[in-house]
């Protein structure tokens, strides 16, 4: 489950990842790497960390890029596109020359002198500082594309229909949930649509302690919280705080499934249902 290292991680592979789903934070998402990263990581995501992790080299000079943006728009965007993604001139975000030019010297030279045999004209009136600022703006645009740690979900939802969401809720959710009870003001807690949607789909972002009844080999029943549970060992913390551990294959463990309703809905939702429902719950401010 690949994410920026800040993101997900698991013991040995996606196969048992502890999900710290960024989808429920203001800053998703998964910089999906080519493979799951293995170690658990509790640090908060930082854009710098994802930059370092991705091996993106020198970070662009933000102040220079900020100055370079308007200069780029004025002098370059007619050919290279609004955000350097190309037009009648080449895409500069994917330009090998730009990607390689850590010192900004090559980019500066091309701006100053133009490129013979192409439509790229010289810009002799731009100062060395201007040229460097434009180069830094290009590196900044590359950073926006290449550094997945900077990606953000939208703050508003463009599709979905709150009225339809309301009827879906009445038909499928109202047995367990109430918009004036447990879900009152839920939109203040999850104002971002993606976070709300994730919460609707599966309202647990990490393994919350599970309540269970353990039937021991001699028929005794003990109820409490599962402190540990896997294919080999079961540890139950009883109400009095006492913990007991058994070999899992010697006991019967009955876990109360609080999420059965959510589990049953997952295969049934259309994306429209999810958008409608999200839209509706976002009105519960």
């Amino acid at each position, binding site marked *: *489950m690949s994410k920026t*290292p800040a993101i997900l*991680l*698991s013991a*040995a*592979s*996606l*196969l*048992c*990842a502890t*999900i710290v789903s960024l989808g429920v934070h203001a800053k998703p*998402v*998964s*910089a*999906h*790497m*080519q*493979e*799951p990263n*293995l*170690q658990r990581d509790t640090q908060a995501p930082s854009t710098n960390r994802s930059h*370092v*992790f*991705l*091996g*993106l*080299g020198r970070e662009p000079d933000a102040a220079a890029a900020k100055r370079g943006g308007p200069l780029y728009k004025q002098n370059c965007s007619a050919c290279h596109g609004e955000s350097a*993604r190309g037009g009648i001139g080449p895409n500069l*975000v*994917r330009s090998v020359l730009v*990607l390689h030019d850590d010192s900004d010297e090559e980019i500066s030279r091309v701006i100053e002198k133009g490129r013979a045999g192409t439509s790229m004209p010289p810009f002799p009136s731009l100062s060395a500082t201007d040229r460097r600022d434009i180069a830094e703006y290009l590196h900044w645009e*590359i950073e*926006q*594309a*290449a550094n*997945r740690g900077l*990606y953000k*979900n939208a703050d508003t939802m*463009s*599709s979905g229909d709150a009225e339809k969401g309301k009827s879906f809720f009445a038909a499928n959710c109202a047995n367990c949930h109430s918009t004036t009870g447990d879900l009152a003001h839920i939109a203040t807690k999850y104002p971002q649509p*993606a976070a709300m*949607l*994730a919460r609707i*789909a599966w309202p647990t972002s990490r*393994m919350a302690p599970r309540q269970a009844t353990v039937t021991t080999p001699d028929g005794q029943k003990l109820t409490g919280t599962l402190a*540990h*549970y*896997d*294919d080999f060992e079961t540890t139950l913390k009883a109400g009095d705080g006492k913990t007991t551990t058994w070999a899992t*294959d010697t006991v019967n*463990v009955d876990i109360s499934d609080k999420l059965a309703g*959510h*589990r049953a809905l*997952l*295969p049934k*939702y259309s*994306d429209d249902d*999810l*958008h409608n429902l*999200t839209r509706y719950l976002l009105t519960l401010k």
Partner: protein
Amino acid sequence: MKLTRLRSLALAALLSAPALAVQSLAAQTLDPKTLTLFHQPADVWPTYHGDYSGRRFSEITQINQKNIAQLKTKWKYKITGIPPLRGSGPLVIKSTPLMVDGVLYFTIPDHVFAVDARTGKEKWRFDFEDHGGHVLGQRGVGMYGKWIYFLTPDGWFISLDSATGKERWRKKVADEKLQYFTTMAAVIVKNHVIIGIGGDAMDVRGYLESRDPETGELQWQWWAEPLKMGDPGSETWPNQAAMDHGGGMTWLPGTYDPELNLIYWGTGNTNPVFAGQGRKGANLYTDSIVALNPDTGKLAWYFQASPHDTHDWDNVETPVLFDMEIDGKPRKLLAQAARCGYFFVLDRTNGKYLVSKPFTKTANWAKGIDERGQPIPDPGKEPHVDGSMVDIATGGATNWPPPSYSPQTQLFYVNASEGYSVAYLYDTSSDPQGYGGGSSGWFDPASSLIALDVKTGDVKWKHTAKGLGGEGGMSGGILTTGGGLLFTGDSRRLAAFDSANGKILWSEKLDSSMSNGPSTWVLDGKQNVIVGAGDTLYALTLDGK
């Protein structure tokens, strides 16, 4: 110069590598005869998968269902003196160690280790300082004669002397400035060192290349996209620029059939990863299984697992080769459990499919399969600005950890991740760059070991791990053996299952979750099982002797 040995080498090898043929097979020299399709010798683990088939099945029966209770750790080798890797935290062994003449060779990013297979004592270590690239993982080394081949995060291809760890030469094979990086274990086929690459942050072309084992010079390169409009496959792309930035990385070791003289490789996801609007079409040969001639790099056939992928479903998972009788006829087959959630069984002579079926949930991103058995993606399930849910967990239904096929049970085994995730589109422009979106979520999560019937694709049995999250779940790759055993990681343990029915027969606690593909071999008459978990390599034998 024994003629029999020479016969096993291609003519090309004779011309470029006489050195190997005349070497006496001294210590730590890999006899090319040990590289076989099936039935590798018991006293060697000569390549990432153990043999060319990728079955990860060992015929050794010394450790078996009757005595598995006696299996104990014989030694541990813990990596020391290396700080956490740049941006990626603790050290994790993902490589499958080679074992040649009593020495194990394994890696983490930037480092190669040679360890005495009898004692776990370090023989030598090779340390490299990278200047970029991802330090996400390193699958291990390749070996040819007495030479070791290693790939670094920033695209250096390095040859080392297996006796000393001393560098012989290095060649640049990938440009980290374009966000390429290299993590794979090179695969040696005749006199070809076959190298794949990774990297999809900045929309570059995937490629696979072959290099000369003596000089490191390029022999051929195969690109994951057609080179120009008009070439076969270009009809699945809108224009040249989309092809030039189409991705399709080749970052896991493939497999090889010496008789058919074809290598089988999986290609990674299409780029831009989540934003498909600038690359309408199926986008060949990304997300495919390709069969190539190892001498020329020419494509013999392809099968696309995830046409027009918009979910980061690299199709690099091992294309496992096996032979079997079907309707009374012997068949040469290939099976893959793909990250997109489908299980494929193909005829490896021509790519025609026998099985194409989801192996976790319904694979609701596909509307069914076409006449070639390739899934048909539902455009409605592409990433959406407001999210679009698929019944595949983020990261895919399975991933890089190696699967296994046992000829004993005729079952294919894979560790799977089951659940739902939501894919978002961020870059809505007509010409997106970078990932352009993302995926999140593991709703209704389950981690399972699945045994699939290769004739039908049906689930023969499934073991769903009881533990989830930080405390449990399946981990690492799979090894099956002639002793009726299946080894894999489960909840911070190495576990042995009955390969016929999925019953747990034995387990041993490790210091962290198993993180590589288990391997096994016999040395001094003792069968060893080797696993990596975090920063530690373990050797297990009967009674730990």
